[in-house]
């Protein structure tokens, strides 16, 4: 795995944190928590932010990779097993975003609902991009940052004027639901797991932990603003509106004159979303490679994407079931891999005997 820079990790934390939560997450939160959706999201972001800081601070204490830490503490076999489990985790973490992507693409790119076939060519891209060396992740993030910022700027400018802040009052009407929905949304928050994989892959300099955490907070702010815009515009009917990011700019007065220019911004944002999907698959491939010792990324990429291809074919219309499965049952898996293990990594042996 080639080294990436701290700046690129910051970009990943900023962009991919945000774009992975723009599609169904706002609808889901507004359905379960109504006007308190911001608090629910805030809880998730606060918890994750602390873990992100914890893992990035751990990077200042060791220059080993996560695999190296596991190997030095528990031995090679155990490290391989854990990485095998992480590979499964990243594969699992890709399923929901992949289905969300399919639905989102069908909604914003086509006037009529097209067949699944029109989405399947995405696998050509995924196979190609996932097979690329790790260095690509960071460089793609470099390119994605201006695209993300420009498109978000346009979308937010087109949407914020329609926000009615009285939609958020009164607050804390169902405090229990805030926490339960936070727990059910845990499967959307896997950034600390990304950081575990980046450990030892970048040269840590003083202050990098703060930079990474601030970038994560930046991503969180974008999500919170979109959530606020979404609920502020739609209010009580928000749960019936899917694909929030594409719905918030619909009421821009000049659309009649200039057309749906927000769609152009959404298309640019889609590039970033595709790369966010690639990141999960690339990390899964990386974990498989570490676990099995098999280094041919092209073969691994074909194999992993073939699995997703089959899942997509056979579960085409089962998004609701998949979403329910993840929010009701899978949260425990995500809690372990994206929260507990990153925190527990502090207890691994950080220095060699001779150090």
């Amino acid at each position, binding site marked *: 795995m080639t080294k990436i820079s701290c700046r690129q990790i910051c970009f990943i934390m900023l962009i991919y944190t945000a774009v992975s939560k723009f599609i169904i997450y706002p609808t889901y939160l507004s359905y379960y928590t109504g006007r308190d959706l911001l608090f629910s999201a805030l809880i998730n972001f606060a918890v994750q932010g602390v873990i992100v800081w914890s893992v990035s601070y751990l990077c200042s204490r060791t220059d080993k990779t996560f695999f190296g830490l596991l190997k030095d503490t528990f031995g090679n076999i155990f490290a391989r097993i854990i990485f095998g489990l992480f590979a499964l985790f990243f594969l699992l973490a890709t399923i929901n975003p992949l289905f969300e992507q399919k639905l989102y693409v069908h909604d914003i790119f086509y006037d009529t609902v097209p067949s699944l076939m029109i*989405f399947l060519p995405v696998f050509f891209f995924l196979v190609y991009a996932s097979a690329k060396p790790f260095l690509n992740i960071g460089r793609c993030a470099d390119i994605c940052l201006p695209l993300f910022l420009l498109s978000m700027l346009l979308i937010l400018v087109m949407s914020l004027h329609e926000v009615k802040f009285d939609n958020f009052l009164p607050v804390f009407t169902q405090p229990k639901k805030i926490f339960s929905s936070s727990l059910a949304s845990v499967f959307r928050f896997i950034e600390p797991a990304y950081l575990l994989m980046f450990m030892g892959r970048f040269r840590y300099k003083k202050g990098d932990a703060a930079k990474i955490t601030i970038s994560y907070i930046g991503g969180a702010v974008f999500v919170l603003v979109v959530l606020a815009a979404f609920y502020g515009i739609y209010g009580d009917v928000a749960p019936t509106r899917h694909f929030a990011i594409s719905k918030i700019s619909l009421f821009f007065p000049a659309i009649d004159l200039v057309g749906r220019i927000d769609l152009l911004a959404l298309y640019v944002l889609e590039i970033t979303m595709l790369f966010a999907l690639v990141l999960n698959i690339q990390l899964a491939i990386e974990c498989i490679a570490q676990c099995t010792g098999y280094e041919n990324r092209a073969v691994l990429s074909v194999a992993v994407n073939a699995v997703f291809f089959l899942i997509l074919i056979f579960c085409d219309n089962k998004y609701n079931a998949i979403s329910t499965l993840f929010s009701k049952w899978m949260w425990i898996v995500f809690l372990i891999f994206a929260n507990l293990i990153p925190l527990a990594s502090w207890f691994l042996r950080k220095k060699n005997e001779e150090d």
Partner: protein
Amino acid sequence: MVTLDKNIKGVKSVLTSEDIIVFEFASLSGKKFASIYADGVADKQLLGELVAKPLKDVKEDDTLEEIKKRLASPEVKDGDKIADAIKEISDGNAVLFVDGEKDFFIIGLKKPPGRTVAEPPTQVAVKGPREGFTEDIKTNLGLVRKRLKSDKLQIKTLRAGKQSDTAVALIFIDGICPDGLAERVQKEIEQKSVDIVPDSSYISQFISKKPKSLFRHNGSCEKPDIFCAKISEGRVGILVDGSPIALTVPYMLIEDFQAVEDYYQVSYRSTILRILRLVSLMVGIFLPAFYVSAQLFKIQLIPYRLLLKISSSVSGLALSPSVEMFLTLFLLEVLIEASIRMPKYVGLAMSVVGALVLGDTAVQAGIISTPAIIIIAFSAISLFTTPDLVETSTTLRWLFLIIGGSLGTFGIVMFTAFLICYLVSEQSYGVPLLAPFAPIIKGDLYDSIVKSNMYALNKRPEAFKAKNKVRIKER
């Protein structure tokens, strides 16, 4: 003792062509000489002035050293092998044999026919120098020397092409160019064996790690001022005899958005023009594909009033939007190709036939619509704002049109992501093709899409890892 006849026969047995001229003359004392040269390539007048005339006073017993001293030519080399003599004659120089001597002199009289220094057609500048490279490598080297008088300027001459034996010059500045870069380029050129090298584009493929790539991996220019500026940033320049196009490596994609005038005018204006070029390129590549996919898959992309106009234009059209756009683009490509190949005096007639007869009647006949023609024309004009990228961008326009017509805008977005993924991993001699954007190189961003003023560019581009990084400093 080697007679003059033996030497002449030795050369003529290999160079049997009739344009190889043997000029035999003698001094007043009777010492015989023979000069052999290729007619039309060597300068006969200089041969008389600098060689024959000074040798008239040579005495019968003068040694080779004494004869050499009498020669007025500034470029005289010694030779002793007939093979060398043959090579030099083929190259345009003259060889002087002395009766009774095995050794000979090689006299630099090369003066191949060629055009004079003129403004290059592809890099026209309103402000700034107007000189352009010619097909003669010596003239081109002179143009470079004229601008780079540094004692650190290095020129390495290589030979490429088994039959053409073309001279290739590697030019770099010692102390700025990174160690080993020139050697790497030299190795790449020397490793390839080809019959002839008629143009630098052959060398361009030799030095590229991925010659089949849609994107080139080396820069090119026709102007010595640009060439020298690039060399002084740490690149290696390549001049090929017979080609007015000079090459430079390493290369970054952003170079094609930087026009020569950007450096001779106010930086704000340059920045605006660079943004304009980038936007034009995007429009040129994406517009036809977006237009087709909007019509076929996402009509909301088109503003309502414009949609009404378009619908009135396309109603009753016999062809589908993608076939219509395909046909129009094909027509444009045919027109461009024909206008380049046809003699100039037919050009006007062809413009009338192409633009008026074909275009107008096709619209009236309901085969293609007016918006399609406007879009293709606008796309074509837009692409020519970055002339160095035209080959790539026109191919991409076709690809995007095919994808947009079959998969819609999602196909366009996906293919764009694919291109980004491809480009971020590409390198030219260790320099990322998308630098300074991926990876971001902060210092180099000042001369990317944004063009800062000269004082902000006080460092050489970091991407090239130049040995001497400082470009401007206070004295």
